[in-house]
């Protein structure tokens, strides 16, 4: 009997220890580490996407939940639970993991979409800007646009820089403003040069040219017609076309001349008031026109009265048809410039008093009108 007691005690102790070991091995952590790591990874993904910067509401929502749950995790980290015990914290973390994954996927998609939009917008606006620069250059109207082209250029440089920085929203904003600037440029050109597309005005110019040719025929003498839109000088003799030469105009030559220093080439009926041969001009040979004529003076006075012409500006003068001093000079200050060989031929065929009619355009399909039409067509594209 005395030998049985220790055996029973040992058995009880053995079974007890076994039961305790079994119970302990059945316990689990409060929150599995893999869930916490998964949420931490989502947080890293969101930071890489710069969600706090680009989608602050999404990131705030995520971090608020994450911080609340992390606080609970830290409070519960020393606890263990029975496997059958419900674990609200783990459920909440898994839900946050799922929601966070969706947010990462959505923001990735949205950012890629925004990136593509910014890229496309830059390409479209740049394309339009390039085209407009070419067209504006082709009709010598860069000066008409003032500071606007440089503003567009700066905005496009900013759009590129923001794109490179991954700030696609700002890149789009800069491109949008550049597109608006281009639309304004097109509107300015239409307003300033619209007369080149105006049938009534073109009819007037056609009549002026017709009168000049008739005068040449009736008086059996020479007459010159200069077409600004096409930059062509044509010499008539006895009402017949004798020769046509390309010309260069003022740096603002496409506009109507208003005052001294505006760089515009005047439009109207003039006569050669003086011929300057070699040694009398720095421009090889020159035919001085009688600008300003009566119409010019009347327009100038009206401009002064209405305030369109500043009081400090004089009407100007010394408008000439001349040769080239420097072959590399592309523009004049308002004169009409020919190559020297052509100037020599023209110089010999005209005399003091020869009529010179300068018009904007002689047909509706002139280069300026065509350019304006193209700019209108492309305005909607950006």
């Amino acid at each position, binding site marked *: 009997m005395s030998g049985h007691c220790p055996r029973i005690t040992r058995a009880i102790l053995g079974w007890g220890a076994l039961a305790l070991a079994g119970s302990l091995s059945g316990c689990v952590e409060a929150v599995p580490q893999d869930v916490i790591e998964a949420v931490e990874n989502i947080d890293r993904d*969101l*930071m890489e996407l*710069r969600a*706090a*910067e680009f989608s*602050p509401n999404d*990131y*705030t929502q995520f*971090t*608020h*939940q*994450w*911080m*609340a749950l*992390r*606080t609970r995790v830290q*409070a519960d980290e020393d606890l263990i639970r029975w496997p059958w015990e419900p674990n609200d914290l783990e459920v909440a973390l898994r839900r946050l993991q799922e929601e966070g994954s969706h947010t990462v996927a959505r923001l990735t998609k949205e950012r890629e979409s925004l990136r593509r939009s910014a890229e496309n917008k830059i390409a479209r606006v740049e394309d339009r800007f390039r085209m407009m620069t070419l067209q504006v250059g082709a009709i010598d109207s*860069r*000066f008409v*646009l*003032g*500071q*606007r*082209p*440089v*503003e567009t*250029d*700066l905005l496009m*440089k*900013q759009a590129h*820089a*923001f794109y490179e*920085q991954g700030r696609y929203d*700002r890149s789009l904003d800069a491109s949008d403003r550049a597109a608006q600037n281009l639309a304004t440029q097109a509107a300015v050109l239409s307003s300033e040069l619209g007369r080149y597309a105006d049938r009534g005005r073109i009819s007037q110019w056609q009549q002026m040219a017709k009168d000049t040719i008739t005068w040449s025929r009736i008086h059996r003498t020479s007459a010159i017609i200069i077409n600004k839109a096409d930059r062509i000088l044509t010499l008539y003799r006895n009402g017949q076309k004798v020769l046509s030469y390309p010309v260069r105009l*003022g*740096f*603002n030559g496409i506009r109507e001349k208003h005052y*001294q*220093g505006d*760089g515009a080439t005047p439009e109207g009926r003039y006569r050669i008031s003086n011929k300057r041969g070699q040694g009398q001009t*720095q*421009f090889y040979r020159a035919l001085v026109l009688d600008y300003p004529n009566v119409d010019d003076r009347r327009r100038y006075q009206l401009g002064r009265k209405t305030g369109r012409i500043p009081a400090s500006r*004089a009407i*100007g*003068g*010394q*408008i000439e048809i001349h040769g080239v*001093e*420097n072959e*590399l*000079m*592309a*523009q*004049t*200050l*308002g*004169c009409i410039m020919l190559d020297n060989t052509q100037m020599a031929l023209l110089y010999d065929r005209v005399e003091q008093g020869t009529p010179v009619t300068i018009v904007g355009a002689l047909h509706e399909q002139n280069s300026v009108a065509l350019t304006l039409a193209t700019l209108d067509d492309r305005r909607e594209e950006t």
Partner: protein
Amino acid sequence: MSKRLTILPVMCALLILTACAKPPTEQIEAAEKAIKEAQASGASTYVPDEYAKIEGALAALKKEEADQEGKFALFRDFGKVEQLAVTAKGDAERLKTEATKKKEEAKATALQAQQAAQEAVKATLELVAKAPTGKDRAALESIKADAEGLKSSLNQVQMAIDTEDYPTAQTKAKAIQEKSQAVSEEIKAALAKIGKGKPSAAKKK
């Protein structure tokens, strides 16, 4: 009588314990103040991820405080709330330092870019001013508007600096500097062309 005497001290002890379990208002206020200061120093702009987290931590702290307030007085424990408040305050102070440093760096970079842009524009305007007068000037007249446009654009950089939008100021300044250098090159090319002829005196046009 003896039973009553035994219960009385227990009740008193309980009341004392209950009275002691109050929220750590001072620490919470200190944390909130530190977070506000961090935001004022530009943390939400210069360290947005960490700032969002600290705001989240403050919200968690407030929730924990509310949870404890909702418990029966005897079971309230604000130890965790106090610990969170102290941690939030420390984190906010660290963020404030970090944001201030980053903001100062951004400001210095923007000011440097602004100065470079101003110098580039000045050089461009000097080139325009050096151009000869008279007929030869025509080649430069259309470029002159660009130089004036660049000069006007410098105001936008200053405006961005005034509103402490340093990244935008830097981007705008760099664009101006680049364009200004390009315009200068264009002017130099034009001057090289017209330089081949002798400058002429100004005439009426």
